[in-house]
C-alpha cells in the first residue's frame, strides 16, 4: 500500500453535494450518481495486460478498496478502506456486434452503491469491427469528470505527473462562514420563488437514453467563429449555454409561463491551473443562472444576459461563498440538507443539468499503445429534471451529449433539440 494514500478520506463540501444527488437520483431514477467516461480505441488492447496495468496502479487499488461511511449525524462522512485482504479489480470484457460507440446494456445497468461496493469500475468492450472501448464508471461522490479524465489518462500514460489530493483548506471562523451562507441564501431566493421551466416533473425509473450531437472539425471552427460574432467576451461557454437553453425552450410541451424561469446551476472548476490535479474529490463550486422566456428570444440576447449574470455573480463572489457554504453544511444530517437544498425549487433542482468540460480532451490521442479514436462523458441518469447536456471538445471536435429519459424528451424531441442547437451554434 502506498504510504501517501490514507485509510480514511473525509468528503469535502462538493462531494457531500454529490452524495445528496446520489440520493436524489436513487429516489427519482433507476440508480445512483454514477458517471461514465468511455475511451474508444482503434484496436483491442490485450485484456490481461490491461487488467495487470489496472491492478498494478496503487491509486486505483486504493480507490477500489474504499467504501463510504456516513457515520453519525453531525459526523463528517468519509471514505474508508475496506478491511480484509485486497480484492483484485475486475475488468469485465464484452464481445459485441453493436456498432462502435454503442455500449452494452449491462454497463448502463451496473450501479455503484458507495456504502457496499467499490466506487470505481472498468469494462472493456470488444467490437466485431476490431475496435474497442474502455469504460470507466465511477460514483460521482468520489471525483468529478475532470478527475476521472486525469485518472484514466494516467492509467494509459503512467508518466503523467498527476496530483492526487487537494491541499487541506484552513477552516474559516464560524461567523464568517455563516455570513457567506447567508449571502448565498439571499442570492438564491432573491425575493422570488423559483419555479423552473421543465420538460418533466415526474420521477421516472428509466435509465438514461443518450443523443450525441457531433460537430466536425470544420464545424467546430465555425462554432468558435460564431461565438466571437456574438461577442462572447468570456469564451464559448456562455454561447453553448445560451444555445442549449433556447433549444430546450423549443422542445417544451408548453411555452414557459411568465412566472417560470430557466434555472440552471453551472459547475465551476476550482482547480488552480497549470497542474494535472487534484484527481480525487469533487473540485467544483457553482454559479446559478436564472433566465426568463424573453431572455431567450434570440441568441445574442441570451448570451448578453448570461454573460451579465456571470460577471455579476463573480463580482459578488457567489461561487466562493457557495463553496464555503458547502464546506459548512457537510456535517448536516442528509434529511435536513436535502430539505434545504431542494426547498428553493420545490424539489425540482434545475430546469436541466449542464456542464462544459472545455478543451481538456483535445490532446488525448493515445492510450496504452492504442490510438484513441474518441472519448465521451456520459452523465448519470437523473429522473428529475430528466435532461442533462454535457459539452466536450475531443481532438478539436466539439460534441454535446444529451442524457434524457423517454418521459422528459421522448419521440422526436432530441432530434428537434439537435436541429435548433446546431442552427444556433453554427449561425445558420
Amino acid at each position, binding site marked *: 500500500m502506498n504510504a501517501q494514500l490514507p485509510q480514511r478520506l473525509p468528503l469535502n463540501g462538493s462531494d457531500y453535494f454529490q452524495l445528496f444527488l446520489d440520493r436524489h437520483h436513487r429516489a427519482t431514477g433507476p440508480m445512483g450518481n454514477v458517471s461514465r467516461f468511455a475511451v474508444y480505441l482503434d484496436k483491442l488492447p490485450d485484456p490481461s495486460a490491461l487488467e495487470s496495468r489496472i491492478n498494478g496502479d496503487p491509486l486505483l487499488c486504493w480507490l477500489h478498496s474504499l467504501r463510504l461511511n456516513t457515520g453519525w449525524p453531525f459526523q463528517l462522512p468519509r471514505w474508508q478502506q475496506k478491511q480484509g485482504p485486497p480484492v483484485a479489480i475486475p475488468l469485465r470484457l464484452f464481445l459485441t456486434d453493436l456498432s462502435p460507440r454503442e455500449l452494452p446494456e449491462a454497463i448502463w445497468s451496473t450501479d455503484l452503491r458507495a456504502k457496499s461496493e467499490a466506487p470505481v469500475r472498468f469494462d472493456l468492450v470488444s467490437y466485431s469491427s476490431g475496435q474497442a472501448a474502455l469504460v470507466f464508471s465511477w460514483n460521482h461522490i468520489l471525483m468529478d469528470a475532470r478527475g476521472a479524465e486525469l485518472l484514466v489518462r494516467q492509467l494509459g500514460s503512467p508518466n503523467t505527473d498527476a*496530483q492526487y489530493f487537494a491541499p487541506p483548506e484552513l477552516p474559516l471562523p464560524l461567523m464568517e462562514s455563516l455570513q457567506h451562507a447567508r449571502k448565498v441564501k439571499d442570492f438564491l431566493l432573491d425575493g422570488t420563488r423559483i419555479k423552473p421551466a421543465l420538460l418533466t416533473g415526474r420521477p421516472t425509473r428509466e435509465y438514461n437514453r443518450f443523443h450525441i450531437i457531433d460537430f466536425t472539425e470544420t464545424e467546430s471552427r465555425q462554432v468558435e467563429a460564431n461565438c*466571437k460574432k456574438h461577442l462572447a467576451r*468570456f*469564451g464559448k461557454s*456562455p454561447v453553448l449555454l445560451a444555445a442549449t437553453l433556447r433549444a430546450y425552450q423549443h422542445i417544451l410541451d408548453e411555452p414557459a409561463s411568465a412566472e417560470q424561469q430557466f434555472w440552471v446551476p453551472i459547475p*465551476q472548476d476550482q482547480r488552480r491551473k497549470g497542474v494535472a490535479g487534484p484527481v480525487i474529490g469533487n473540485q467544483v463550486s457553482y454559479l446559478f443562472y436564472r433566465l426568463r422566456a424573453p431572455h431567450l428570444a434570440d441568441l445574442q440576447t441570451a448570451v448578453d444576459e448570461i454573460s451579465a449574470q456571470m460577471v455579476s455573480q463573480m463580482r459578488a463572489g457567489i461561487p466562493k461563498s457557495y463553496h464555503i457554504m458547502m464546506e459548512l453544511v457537510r456535517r448536516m444530517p442528509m434529511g435536513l440538507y436535502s430539505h434545504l437544498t431542494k426547498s428553493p425549487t420545490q424539489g425540482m433542482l434545475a430546469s436541466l443539468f449542464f456542464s462544459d468540460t472545455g478543451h481538456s480532451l483535445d490532446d488525448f490521442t493515445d492510450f496504452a499503445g492504442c490510438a484513441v479514436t474518441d472519448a465521451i462523458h456520459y452523465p448519470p441518469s437523473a429522473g428529475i429534471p430528466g435532461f442533462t447536456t454535457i459539452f466536450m471538445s475531443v481532438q478539436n471536435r466539439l460534441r454535446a451529449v444529451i442524457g434524457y429519459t423517454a418521459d422528459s424528451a421522448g419521440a422526436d424531441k432530441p432530434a428537434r433539440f439537435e436541429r435548433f442547437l446546431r442552427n444556433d451554434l453554427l449561425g445558420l
Partner: protein
Amino acid sequence: MAVVIEQDVICQKLCEFIQANLVAPGIGVSPTTSLTQLGLDSFSIIEIVLFIERQYGLTLPDVALSKENIESPQAFAACVHHYISL
C-alpha cells in the same frame, strides 16, 4: 496632473495576481507566459477583468477581450494600458 501608469507595471501586477490567485503553487508566470496554455478558462478571465476593474477603475469593453489581447500578461497589459491612456 494625470498619473501615468507604465505598461510594465501593469504587466507585473497581472503576473502577480495570476500567480497568487489562479495557478497552482510553483507554476511560474512571466510577461510572455501563454494564458491559454496555462489552462485559464472563462471564469479565470473574468477574475482578471475584475482585478483590472478594482485596480485601475477601468471597465474593459467587449472588443478589448479578443483572443490576441488575452494571450499573455504582456498582451493583456498592452490592452489595459491602451484603454487607460484614452
